[in-house]
Every structure is written in structure tokens, then in C-alpha cells.
């Protein structure tokens, strides 16, 4: 019967099936873009976290890179130096004569991307807007009392607590200068009622009005951000006509794209993908040191766990974890580990210091401590974690590693996977009944932000009633003017925090960014905005 009904011949069938293949072949990506590509920098990165490009509302991880390309702050940090500040829109800064704040001298001849000159009014207005909008960035400068214009090139920022740090915080891309006239014309407000009066979010998300090397030209959510050259940039002509920050969520797809040259840099590769790039002559690996870290917080609430309430028992955990194993075998060595909450690279935290005062695996000592704590045969506790990964290492794998490490001294770990929302809710409200594996990157490079977190909010989460001394030590260190003494105080603070043993920093990632050789300078920074886009340059050829 099949033969009798043969109304279609073999050739037609193949034609039909060939439609798909034909479509594939007929639409070969044309090379019409080749010329445009030469003047364009394309970055491949997962930017799904970007929900705003408004500096005064910034709170995400990847958006600061874009914002720092379009806007400038008064002071900044050069890649590799996270202790000393560099001039940006301000050329000089010093304490105000009365000592209550800081006085900034503005750079001369700075123009916005519209070509209009930057004025002190723009600076004051920008700070007022952050404060009055009351969004997350306002929290970081809660210590700012007011901003005062002194003359046409001088401005004062007056503080509530004059000794508390300011400069390191305002180097972050939240605290940048906007062109008041343009912003206001598009709905922005810096008035007291800015919270409700400011309607600029929509405009500011797809445009920019800053002094930065590039100007935001478009943002299509979960697709790409387009930046174009600012012809009026005060730092000289920016080398690229256009920068495309391309959203590619999948690391494997980023790898293919950077290999092929569709993107100039890939930001989210995991160790295995990075290893596969070795030997590719067109692509190099650039280390992006970060000031982020993954840590385990441990409750000391006796009602939750009797053993964890004993300091020696917690210290035993600290001495039982195989930190080197985590870094070497799970991260391929691409990570650092500070002693406590001050990442390597900031004042008082170096690899040398971390080796001296931090925990390291010492099973004999762990067993001694367990005996001392009264748990000779070990104890049991749970570790909660979310379904996420840092640098390609999942919290699940980290949990398994810690579980097997602690089993060697008789401590039994129950792993408890949770979704991120529940984990965060439990943790921030102090309801975690054991350990929590999590991640932190601070909004700005200021030791106080990390240290205060430990003795204030994180302490509450782990039910640690912090002694007066250590709280005092934080403010003493943060307000110390002499850098050498300040570093010593931070070391002392870390020692005390390590001794308490309720936070164990597991690793501080050094992300590996794959960069094509079409790009010459690619200044990655740990300061919070990942890349100094204004200083990226193309190769000569």
C-alpha cells in the first residue's frame, strides 16, 4: 500500500528537509559589520542584574562599570592601589579649615558630553539628589551633613562625624557628577521631595549626562548597553567610537564568542572554560582581582546549637577546613584568602598578614580544641546555602568539601540547600541555625564598611553580642589619620575577629577575564566597577 500511495518523491522530500539547512546557509552572518567593528569594543558579560543605570539608585554588581564610563566622581582609585586616592573631577582635596569636612578643588575646563562646562552647582546638585532621593546610595553617605559651595571652583562636603571616612566612599560610581540642566529637563529633582518628584529614572537608564569618556546611547534590557564616544571628554579623545556591553548569560556561549572574535572580552568563564583557552594565540587571560569574598557565617546562639555556642568548638571548625584545597583544587589557584573580612589589598590586609593571623588547616589543633570545648567526639550542625555559584564553584560543592573536611575531626555537617530568597531572609533576620555560605562585595572600598558590618549587622545575624572594645577598635582604625598606624589597628581588629570564630572567609576570587588581542590596555580593577573603560585601548594593528 505504501508504494501505491507514493505521491511524493525522494527529491521533494529532501528539498523539504533541506529548508532548514538552506535557511542556515543563506543567512551566513554578513561581514558588513567588519569596518564598524574595528572602532567598537564589544564586551561579553552577564548583565541580567542591571536594573538601573541611575548613579543615585545604583545597587547592583555589573552596572557600576557602565556608570563609571559615562560619569566621573571627584576622586577615584587606580587599578591595584585600593588605599590611596587619585584625582578625577577634583584635583586637590584637604580638610576644611574648621576640620568638619573636606574641601575639593575642581578640575578646570571639564565639560559634559553636551559640551557645557561643569560647574560647582552641578556637583552640589548631584550630591543633593543622592541624599534626597534616599535610595540605597544615600545610606553610604549618611554621614554627610551638607554640601556647600565655597567659590566657583571650590566645594565643601560637611560631615556629621568629621573623623569618619568619606573619600574612599565617594570614589564609588554612585557619587558622580550629573549635568543639572540636562537632568532636570528630563525629570530629575534634587529637592527635599526628590523621592516622589524625581521622574528621571526612565531617561537616565537609556541616556547619560556626565563628564565621562563615553555617553550612554541605549540600553535594551537583557540585551546590550551601547556607549558612544564623548567628544568633549576632559581626558583626551577616547579611543573607541562605540562600546557595546553585550549580555551573554551563558559562559559557554561567551567562550565561543570570544574565540570567534564576536566579542573582545568574556567576563563569566568558569575554570574549565578558561583552561580550554590556553594555547589560543588570539586570546589572553587577564586576572580581575576582586575585593569580594565567599564566607561561612556561623551562629553562636545556644538555643540553635549548643556546640556552636562554645568558642573553642567554632575555632575547631576554623582549623579543620582545608582552605588551600578549596583554592587549589576547586578554583585552580585563582583566588586569595584574607584572614577575615578585610580583603587582600586594603589597608592592613596582605597575604603575608593573612598567613600569620588567619586560620589554616591543623587537624590536631582542631581535635584539641574540640576536647577543650567538651565535644571530644565531635558534634553536629547544619550548613545552609543557596543555589548559586561564584567563579564557577557552586555553594553545593563548597558545602560538600567542608562536610568532608569536618568529618575528619568528627564534626558532622548536614547540608541544607535553600533558594536564595529564603536563605537571605533567614540569614539577615538571624534565623539561621548553623552555618551559612554566602558572598559579599561592599559598595565602596572602605575598610569601615567591611569591619562595621562584622561587628554590627553580621554580628546580630550570628547572635554575637559584640564587646565594646572591638566596636571601638573599628572606629578608632577608621578615623586614624596616620596610614601606618591605621594598618596596624586593622591587623589588631582582624586578630580579634578571627579569635571569635564566627566568620570564616573561604576565598577572595581572582576572576579570569578572556581578552582578545585586538585590545591592548584592559585595566581591570577591584575597586567595584571592574574595568576602567575610559582607559581601554585597541591594539595598533
Amino acid at each position: 500500500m505504501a508504494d501505491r500511495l507514493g505521491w511524493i518523491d525522494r527529491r521533494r522530500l529532501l528539498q523539504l528537509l533541506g529548508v532548514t539547512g538552506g535557511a542556515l546557509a543563506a543567512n551566513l552572518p554578513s561581514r558588513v559589520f567588519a569596518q564598524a567593528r574595528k572602532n567598537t569594543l564589544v564586551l561579553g558579560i552577564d548583565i541580567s542584574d542591571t536594573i538601573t543605570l541611575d548613579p543615585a539608585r545604583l545597587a547592583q554588581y555589573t552596572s557600576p562599570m557602565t556608570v563609571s564610563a559615562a560619569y566621573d566622581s571627584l576622586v577615584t582609585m587606580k587599578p591595584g592601589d585600593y588605599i590611596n586616592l587619585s584625582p578625577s573631577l577634583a584635583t586637590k582635596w584637604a580638610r576644611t579649615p574648621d576640620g568638619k569636612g573636606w574641601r575639593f578643588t575642581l578640575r578646570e575646563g571639564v565639560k559634559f558630553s553636551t559640551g557645557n562646562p561643569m560647574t560647582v552647582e552641578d556637583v552640589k546638585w548631584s550630591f543633593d539628589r543622592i541624599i534626597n532621593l534616599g535610595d540605597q546610595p544615600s545610606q553610604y553617605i549618611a554621614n554627610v551633613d551638607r554640601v556647600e559651595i565655597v567659590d566657583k571652583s571650590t566645594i565643601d562636603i560637611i560631615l556629621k562625624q568629621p573623623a569618619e571616612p568619606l573619600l574612599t566612599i565617594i570614589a564609588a560610581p554612585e557619587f558622580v557628577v550629573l549635568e543639572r540642566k540636562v537632568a532636570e529637563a528630563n525629570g530629575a529633582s534634587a529637592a527635599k521631595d526628590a523621592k516622589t518628584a524625581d521622574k528621571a529614572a526612565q531617561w537616565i537608564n537609556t541616556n547619560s549626562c556626565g563628564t565621562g569618556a563615553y555617553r550612554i546611547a541605549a540600553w535594551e534590557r537583557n540585551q546590550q548597553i551601547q556607549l558612544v564616544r564623548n567628544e568633549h571628554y576632559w581626558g583626551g579623545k577616547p579611543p573607541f567610537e562605540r562600546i557595546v556591553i553585550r549580555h551573554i548569560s551563558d559562559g559557554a556561549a561567551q567562550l565561543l564568542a570570544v574565540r570567534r572574535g564576536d566579542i573582545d572580552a568574556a567576563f563569566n568563564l568558569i575554570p574549565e572554560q578558561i583552561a580550554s583557552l590556553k594555547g589560543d594565540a588570539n586570546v589572553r587571560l587577564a586576572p580581575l582581582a576582586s575585593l569580594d569574598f565567599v564566607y561561612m557565617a556561623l551562629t553562636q546562639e545556644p538555643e540553635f546549637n549548643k556546640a556552636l555556642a562554645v568558642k573553642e568548638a567554632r575555632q575547631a571548625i576554623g582549623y579543620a577546613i582545608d582552605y588551600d584545597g578549596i583554592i587549589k583544587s576547586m578554583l585552580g589557584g585563582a583566588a586569595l584568602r584574607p584572614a577575615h573580612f578585610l580583603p587582600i589589598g586594603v589597608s592592613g590586609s596582605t597575604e603575608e598578614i593573612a598567613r600569620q593571623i588567619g586560620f589554616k588547616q591543623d587537624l590536631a589543633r582542631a581535635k584539641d580544641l574540640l576536647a577543650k570545648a567538651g565535644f571530644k567526639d565531635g558534634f553536629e550542625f547544619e550548613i545552609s546555602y543557596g543555589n548559586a555559584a561564584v567563579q564557577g564553584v557552586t555553594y553545593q560543592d563548597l558545602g560538600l568539601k567542608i562536610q568532608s573536611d569536618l568529618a575528619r575531626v568528627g564534626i558532622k555537617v548536614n547540608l541544607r540547600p535553600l533558594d536564595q530568597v529564603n536563605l537571605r531572609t533567614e540569614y539577615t533576620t538571624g534565623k539561621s541555625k548553623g552555618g551559612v555560605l554566602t558572598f559579599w562585595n561592599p559598595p565602596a572600598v572602605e575598610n569601615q564598611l567591611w569591619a562595621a558590618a562584622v561587628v554590627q549587622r553580621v554580628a546580630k545575624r550570628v547572635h554575637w553580642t559584640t564587646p565594646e572594645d572591638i566596636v571601638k577598635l573599628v572606629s578608632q582604625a577608621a578615623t586614624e589619620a596616620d596610614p601606618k598606624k591605621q594598618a596596624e589597628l586593622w591587623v589588631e581588629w582582624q586578630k580579634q575577629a578571627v579569635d571569635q570564630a564566627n566568620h570564616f572567609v573561604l576565598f577572595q576570587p581572582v576572576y579570569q577575564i578572556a581578552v582578545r588581542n585586538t585590545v591592548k590596555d584592559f585595566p581591570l580593577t577591584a575597586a567595584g566597577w571592574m574595568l576602567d573603560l575610559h582607559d581601554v585601548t585597541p591594539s595598533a594593528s
Partner: protein
Amino acid sequence: MPQYILSRLVLLFVMALLATLVIFLLANMVPGDPVLAQLGDLAASNKEFVAEWRAKWGLDLPLWQRYLIFLQQLSHGDLGISIASQRPVLQDVRDFAPATLELASVSFALSLIVGIPLGIMAAVRRDSWIDHLARLISLIGVSSPTFWLAFILLAVFYGGLQIAPGPGRIDSIGLPPPSVTGLYLLDSALAGDWATFRDAAAHLVLPSIVLAAATLGLITRTTRASMLECMQQDYVRVARAKGLRSRRIVIGHILPNALIPIVTLGGLAYANLLTGAVLTETIFSWPGLGRYTFRSAVSLDFPAIMGITLIVAVVYLIINLVIDVSYALLDPRVVR
């Protein structure tokens, strides 16, 4: 007929509302706090700040009151503000839906255009090489995991052979066409921008194959089975006895009857394609609704979850309605 459609529309409305109620209750049984998930560490520890944010989304109100507010907003065509993106949910949907609609429609067309003829031929030439090939194709389509297929196709055609474009809707330095519908193919055609049209079409090839794979397999198999069943019927024998040509028998007598189950399957498959593209969208960096839905769900973004549920429910219900109506048209016995 109009009465039939009207009664179905009323039912649709009630069902859609019920769906939102169920989802609202389910989402609220999860103990996490969406506001804490959105805030930075410092802000999340500031009680006043958290309270202010919770109030902003009405999270401090009793459950029933929140649902009433949702209904009230809904009656004004407002789906509320997303906690994660801080924009109106409707605006988010408007931004992300076209990408999914375009991808799902192309995939759907692909699975029909390939699946139905393949199924017909597999039935007509049962146990021939075509039948085996069809079986192989549908087996691969149905059984290969989406993420695997997606990655293999990318690695082979984009990374290896370099004949297909990479992830995304258009070339990394290309600009999208001026937005009219948000469907790049349509928009670029409207603008007469054929370079972008070709670029967008090329970018659709791999993801639509991946997304179509499972549906294609299903449609091929169902078409084959349904054809075979119809081929056994008496009217086919009669037609053959009358001396009709094979081609006329297949197209004029068997196919119309065999297609009825395909209509049901196809409708549901289309709804599935529209709502089930999360993995494909992730691997191909496709800025669609699937990713948005996933992110809303994992961050407990209530307004977004509610909005999307409502939209998905309505889409399903409308497609069901279309199926029922076309049933009625295809088979007059249904309305009687």
C-alpha cells in the same frame, strides 16, 4: 456559534482569575522576603529602609487586602510595579514578550512545516526508510535535553563550522530596528532594513531549531498515528474503490480527519513554546519572557509573578478557545 464563543469567554475570565488566586496563595506560602532579596547588605539591615520598601509594595498589609488591591489595579489594566526591576510589570512584559513571541512562533511554524509532512509520509510509507528517518528525528527531538541540544548546535554551527551567528537576537554591533511591534523580523521588514532582517532571521535559526525539537517530534508522531488510524477507515476504502488517485485520497479524505488531534496538540504545543523557553533563552541570551519569569520566580517578585501568571493563563485559555472553535469548524458534530 456566537453564543458558544461567548460562554467560553466568560469561563475564560473566571478561570484566569482563579489562576491568579491560586498563584497568589502559593507564592505567599514561601517564607522568604522579596524585599530583603533585592536590597544591598547595608540597606537590608536598616529596619526603616526595609519597612519603607515593604510598604511601597504593600507587603505590610494582610494577605486578603493585598489580593483585593491586585484585583483593583487589574480592573484599571495595571499589573503593579515589579520589585526586581522597579518598573511597571506591563512595561516589562511589553519589553520581553516580543522576543519570546517571535522565537516561539518561528519554532512553531518550523515544527508544523517539518513535522506534519514528515508524519504524513511516515504513515503513507509505513516501515520505509522515510518512516525510520521520521522516527529517528522525533526520537532525537523528544529525548535530547534542551540545554544539551542548544549547546551542541552552538558549538558545531557557531563555534566550529562558523556558519551560524552567535547568541542574541542580532549581531553584537548591530542596532535593533526601530521598534513598532518588537518583533525584529517584522520591524526590520517594515523599515525596509533588509540587512537587519537577514541578521535577525539568521539569529533565529539555531534557537528555533532547539525550541522546536521536542514539539516537532511530538507532531510528527501524532500525525503519523492519526493518519494511520484514518487510513483504516471505510471511507478511505470506498474512495480507493472509486478509483481516486492516491494523492487525492491522502489530501482530500485522510488528512482533514487526521488533522483534528493535531489541532489540539498544536495549540497546546504553541502555548508551551511561548511559556517554556527558559533554557533556550538562557543559552542563546534571548531577552525573552522565559528568563524574566524565571528571575521573577527565584526572587519572589510577587507583582511580576502575578502579572505573568495572569498573562500565561490568558494565553492558554485563549489558545484553548481557538482550539475549541476550530474543532467546531472542522467537525460540525461538536457544536450540536
